[in-house]
């Protein structure tokens, strides 16, 4: 018994000792703003080297440690010169629109005191272009160093002096501007020594801890599956207050968002991206109202992709000579009238209110409310009677006068153009969503019920992302699949990655709905070469692009999520915007974190 008592006493001491050793309250000042702890579901970073990173977790880390050429203004979402963390002090195109001259700031340096110059960008460019490293960004160049085609539009990068970079593009293109930013400058004086034997050495040590950095935090401490800790870097010249307030920035790996939410409520994290299913708790529950929160429209949208081509015979968009291959239409969705009928059959307002607790803004094209080209006038009209009228017009008739039984084809598009034996077939299709989200499954069931009310035989199923959903999506063997696109910043209305025949490639392309429209392609191409990339001129072109997408309905665009971020009560200097909730982190004064 005595031994048991001694053991229990020791156990209690072990629990009690850390409980007693906690942070005291914090005060503003360099490194006196407490510890910022956030959670991440992205897993461990694959690398700490920005030249080879392609995963979100890695990008999240190096965004604190490296500069970029251009930086996004957190207040308007646009790339602007002379912003914190950015190297550019200005830029201009030549008359042809193919030569971009970027002037660099002369007042920033790596944290070992070495000035940040064009040589740092050039070293990163040469490493990426060398072909010796597996960089996902090599595709921004027209050719690799050995002349192998790389497919991009950057022909050449030069540095006439320490504070000027000249980028030459193969053609004028507003989209290629962002490609310049894909290459992250690295400290050339350090990297050239480390990898003196060749760039390939980068691949041998993907998790090498960076020693010389530029940002509000530095000095990575990494524990696999657990955390990434960064310390304040008081040498950072772009800090908001003139010093970095938090002493440490920690990212903890938390695989489950509900667990992260509970731990945040328990006081273990400083900030939380509140899951959509938990947002109402923060709006209504008394004990959670004290958490400061910021609600904003996110920069991505959810949709049901509608396959335009026959899923039994997926074909590429172009032949070997680059000519468009005519494709057999989808038996049901190949007809624009049917797609439009679906837009009238499903009450998206009810879906947003009932399933998403009101957390969403209805959209009907690929542009979102925060975009400079958004047209709020384009909205689907919920009208089941009109849906049934369009189905009848499309040759899908209600043969038994019961609107809820499946209609049958009577001279529908597929019967007219492909196979007359299709007459008499049911108006049937499959609706698929990926497993793992109750909300998605509820939305799938809602679509099924709404569509069946007007005469569809829609069969809903939630299927595994990796082994079923993605293969049938990219394999183009689906009917209607639900997905969401998160759009990067700055948001551009270009549609070439989604609706061009070049990317209609069964097995890998992202025009998996096999949709293309010649007028749309022509307009988009015009929109990319507008002189000076003037947004007003581009907006006029993309107005028409949106009208075509609204009419043709390659996707059933549903909604843009209303997102919410919350911080611990007592957090100071948190200034969230729709474009960034964390840009002011270096000024935060964070309350003491609950650390048992």
């Amino acid at each position: 018994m005595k031994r048991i008592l001694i053991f229990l006493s020791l156990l209690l001491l072990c629990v009690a000792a850390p409980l007693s050793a906690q942070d005291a309250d914090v005060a503003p000042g360099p490194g006196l703003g407490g510890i910022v702890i956030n959670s991440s579901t992205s897993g461990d970073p694959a690398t700490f080297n920005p030249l080879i990173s392609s995963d979100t977790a890695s990008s999240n880390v190096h965004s604190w440690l490296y500069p970029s050429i251009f930086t996004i203004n957190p207040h308007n979402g646009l790339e602007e010169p002379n912003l914190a963390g950015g190297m550019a002090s200005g830029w201009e195109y030549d008359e042809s629109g193919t030569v971009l001259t970027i002037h660099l700031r002369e007042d920033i340096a790596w944290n070992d005191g070495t000035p940040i110059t064009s040589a740092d960008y050039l070293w990163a460019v040469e490493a990426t272009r060398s072909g010796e490293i597996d960089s996902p960004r090599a595709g921004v160049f027209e050719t690799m160093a050995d002349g192998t085609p790389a497919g991009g539009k950057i022909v050449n990068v030069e540095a006439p002096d320490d504070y000027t970079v000249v980028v030459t593009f193969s053609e004028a293109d507003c989209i290629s501007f962002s490609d310049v930013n894909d290459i992250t400058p690295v400290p050339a004086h350090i990297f050239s020594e480390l990898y003196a034997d060749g760039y390939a050495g980068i691949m041998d040590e993907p998790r090498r801890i960076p020693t010389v950095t530029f940002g509000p935090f530095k000095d990575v401490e990494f524990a696999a599956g657990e955390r990434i800790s960064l310390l304040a870097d008081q040498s950072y010249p772009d800090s908001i207050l003139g010093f970095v307030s938090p002493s440490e920035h920690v990212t903890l790996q938390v695989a489950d968002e509900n667990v992260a939410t509970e731990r945040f409520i328990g006081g273990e994290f400083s900030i939380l991206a509140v899951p959509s299913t938990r947002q109402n708790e923060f709006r209504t529950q008394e004990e959670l109202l004290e958490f400061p929160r910021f609600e904003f429209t996110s920069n991505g949208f959810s949709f049901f992709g509608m396959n335009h081509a026959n899923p039994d015979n997926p074909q590429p968009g172009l032949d070997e000579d680059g000519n468009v291959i005519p494709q057999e239409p989808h038996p049901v969705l190949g007809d624009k009238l049917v797609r439009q009928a679906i837009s009238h059959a499903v009450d998206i307002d009810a879906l947003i209110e009932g399933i998403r607790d009101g957390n969403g803004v209805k959209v009907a094209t690929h542009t979102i409310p925060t975009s400079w080209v958004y047209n709020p006038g384009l909205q689907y009209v919920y009208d089941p009677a009109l849906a049934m009228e369009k189905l009848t017009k499309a040759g899908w008739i209600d043969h038994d006068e019961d609107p809820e039984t499946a209609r049958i084809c009577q001279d529908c598009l597929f019967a007219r153009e492909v196979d007359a034996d299709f007459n008499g077939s049911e108006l049937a299709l499959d609706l698929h969503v990926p497993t793992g989200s109750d909300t998605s499954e509820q939305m799938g069931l809602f679509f099924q019920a709404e569509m069946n009310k007007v005469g569809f035989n829609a069969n809903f199923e939630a299927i595994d992302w990796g082994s079923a959903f993605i293969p049938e999506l990219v394999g183009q063997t689906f009917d209607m699949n639900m997905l969401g696109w998160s759009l990067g910043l700055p948001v551009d209305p270009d549609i070439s990655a989604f609706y061009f025949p070049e990317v209609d490639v069964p097995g890998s392309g992202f025009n998996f709905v096999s949709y293309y429209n010649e007028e749309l392609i022509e307009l988009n191409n015009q929109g990319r070469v507008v002189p000076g990339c003037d947004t007003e001129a581009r907006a006029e072109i993309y107005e028409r692009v949106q009208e075509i997408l609204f009419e043709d309905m390659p996707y059933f665009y549903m909604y843009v999520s209303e997102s919410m971020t919350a911080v611990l009560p007592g957090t100071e200097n948190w200034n969230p915007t729709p474009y960034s909730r964390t840009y002011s982190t270096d000024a935060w004064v964070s309350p003491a974190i609950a650390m048992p």
Partner: protein
Amino acid sequence: MQKYILRRIVQALPTLLGITFIVYFIMLLVPGDPVSLLAFDPTLRQDERDRLARQLGVNDPFILQYLRWLIGDDWMMVDTNADGEVDAWGDNYGILRGDFGTSFKFRGSNPLTLIAERLGATIELNIAVLLVGLTSGITIGVLAAVSRGGWFDKSTRVLAVVGDSVPAFWLGLMVLVFFGIALPRDILEPMGIGNGSPLLPMGGRCPPVRGGCPPIFLRIHFLILPTAVSAFGVIAVWSRYMRASMLETINADFMRTARAKGLNHSQVWFRHGLRNAILPFAVFLGPTFVGLLGGSVIIERIFTWPGVGLLTFDALVSRDYPMVMANVMIASVLTVLGYILSDILYAIFDPRVRF
């Protein structure tokens, strides 16, 4: 014994080879490919995705992929710059020469290094679970058998049913909310413990801030919740096994003899009964421990325990073939060793067993 062990190890080699072939074959049969999952990004062009596929070698025929994993590719010309043309000798040595390749997801990282980073956490948690689970399970089982039909026996039956049927993810979330949020934080303040923080950490293995991971005795409180939830099921199962085994032993001749010799109850039950009743468990011990080394996806997910389970699960989901195969190899070798260990333990515990 030594000859027996050697024979078992030699016999295990073709088994291991067979396992790798079957698993590799099944892995490639599963729909979905690594490139679609790794590069599900519309901003990547088609040629970039093709390039990635060539770099990873996932478009090669099955047998070539398997051979490259098994014996390496330094015997063949490969496409080192992913331009579609072979241009140099390969530089992979294959699993038979100790080269586990590189992870698809964690580009350039050795799968063994990635597993080793997390093995310590897995072993730590599973030793705790095994210790708590077995000692509690065996004790409860014996006491239930001793008090057969009594209130304790009946309540352990309820415990076993609950422990076996309550899902770990639910129980985990409940204890997390209870200890982290619902339980008043000043409950231990009269004893001078705590200052407004949760009584027990809601996740993690070490304090979340810089300073590394202190020795286990300084962070044992991080182990309490995941161990308790994980061990609950183990206790439920092992207590019932132990009870059944103990009751079977009670009726053995040697127990009657022990009683006839005039030994007291505790000597009869614990010196004679328990020692014999526990014997069958030796067979399970090796594989059980090895099984636990695989980690638990659910416990690791809820308590943010940085173990091997989630790493393996993520590798499966993202079709990271080298990572999956490294895990399969380690699990296969440990399973074979676990069974050999069981045989050895059985021989040690039961003098009648000879190899």
